[in-house]
């Protein structure tokens, strides 16, 4: 499957089951996927790999949460697309990077793929 991405998608989610299923879903659709269980682990991956998009949860253990991770990624890698997924209700838009997408958990597949397409990452 031809991808218009410049690298894999990075899934950051502390719930192993949800992360596993999200990865399966995206891989089935043809996206290369990397996984991290928290923001700190994700940062380590980001430093070594060019990631096309960050798909992150908000509430996670560790030194930073998903919002903080999204802000830092947006600052350092402005080209990296950002999708934030949380069971929390819509966060303050001011806390999200300008072009980030917020999706509420649980996310439907259609919704997820639509968001990726909107970021120019059609499978």
């Amino acid at each position, binding site marked *: 499957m031809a991808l218009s991405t410049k690298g894999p998608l990075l899934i950051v989610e*502390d*719930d*192993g*089951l*949800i*992360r*596993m*299923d*999200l990865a*399966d*879903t995206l891989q089935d659709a043809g996206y290369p996927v990397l996984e991290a269980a*928290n923001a700190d682990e994700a940062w380590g991956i980001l430093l070594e790999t060019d990631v096309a998009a960050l798909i992150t949860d908000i509430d996670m*253990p*560790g030194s930073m949460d998903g919002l903080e991770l999204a802000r830092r990624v947006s600052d350092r890698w402005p080209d990296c697309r950002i999708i934030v997924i949380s*069971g*929390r*209700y819509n966060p303050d838009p001011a806390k999200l990077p300008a072009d980030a997408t917020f999706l*509420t*958990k*649980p*996310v439907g597949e259609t919704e997820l793929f639509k968001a990726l397409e909107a970021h120019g990452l059609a499978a």
Partner: protein
Amino acid sequence: MNIQFPPSGCATIFEGFDWATSPLGLQSSWPPELKTLTSVMLGSLQPMLIVWGPEQTTLYNDGYAAMCGNRHPAAFGGSFQSLWHDIWDQVEPIISAAYSGQGTSMDDIEFTMHRNGYPEETHFAFSYTPVRDPWGSVLGMFCACTETTSEVRARRVQDDLKERFMQVFELSQGGIAMLAGKDHVFEYANEEYYAMIGVGREIIGKTVADAVPEVIRQGFIGILDGVFATGDPFVAKNLPVKLNRGPEGEEQNRLIDLVYQPTRSAEGCITGILVQARDVTALRAEEKHRELLAYELGHRLKNQLAMVQAIASQTLRYAPDMQTARKNLSDRVAVLSRSHDAIIEGGTGHSRVGDLVAQMTAIHDSPDHPRILVAGPNMTIGSRPALSLSLILHELATNAVKYGALSAPDGRVMLTWRVGGPYRDRFKLEWKETGGPPVAKPEKEGTGSRLIRAGLNGTADCQLSIDYEADGMRFSISADLAGFQKEH
């Protein structure tokens, strides 16, 4: 001289009275003042009384007789003291004053009268007037009475109404105060108002600025001035205010709903301000708490739906056929539901490892012939790891029954857990199967082992291992105790 009076009780008694035996003597010897006054009195419908001479001989008309009750007719022509002997200490100073030349008027004297056939409360205004001869000596006293019963009743109705309004104010759930004048002087405040500004503060008769000085710098006097000047009411909700209402008069932050309304005289001039205030601090705090609770519940529900979504998706993705998928999914959702019961029963948002293990053995083991041997402390576990642990135990047991130790008649499972690690900060659990068929790592990973591999939700560092040992499968978990027991 014979004066003809309309036939009535007192006039008849007067006509037939044996004046010769009275200190007044025969009518012919009476001074003109007395003659004139008796004539006026007996002819008047208004209650009237004459007290005459040093003996204070008492004459009265029918109107006055009604006030005397059963003392009439015996009292007619007798002494004033014998008529009012029972209240003489009150009457004597007034009659003596009249005899010494000083008139007195009394606005409201109450009598119970039977003039309408039943006892009736009546009210009269009296004036005692000294009667003098042409040389100025006091001869006696003349009294005319005016009945004021209807006025008194009207006033009482008004007073009752006022009293009832006051009661309404007192019973009001909100604080009410009445301010008078442009300086906003407290005229009235109900209990609730005192409770709001601080019980025991003295405010009546003082200006707001003097009585509650802490509101000056908060701008409330300015608002009151505005309402008094313009007549426009002031209405505000959830207004923050600092009041020196603490037990030691210390400042406290409150939220109040506040209304200032101008009060007007009959002519329409603004005379003061009615203050209605309600302390809504506790109410708003409770609302906020409820909101937070609802938000938290919503958040949990969404996370659990996400978990169910993932389990359903995983189950369907790797199922060999639809029937297996349906059964497995149904069992897995049931496990989550039971695990949730244990969390609810735990009461404080967490459950216990022993309870979750018992839920699993109740389904997969037989109490008469137990083959899953369990040992471990009934320690607490947070709600997120509890859901994961229930699911992992279910998958382990299902696998053991199908392919592992529990598929053979003599197979056993030893399930143990404890707090471990050099710093006693790890939760460690081990599932060891023995006595089953020979084991080998399956070629293709099934959903069950994938769900197990997902680990304990909510823990920061969860390590899992599955070893296919010669005598049976061994599974172990080691997770940080902090995350394991934290309430999410």
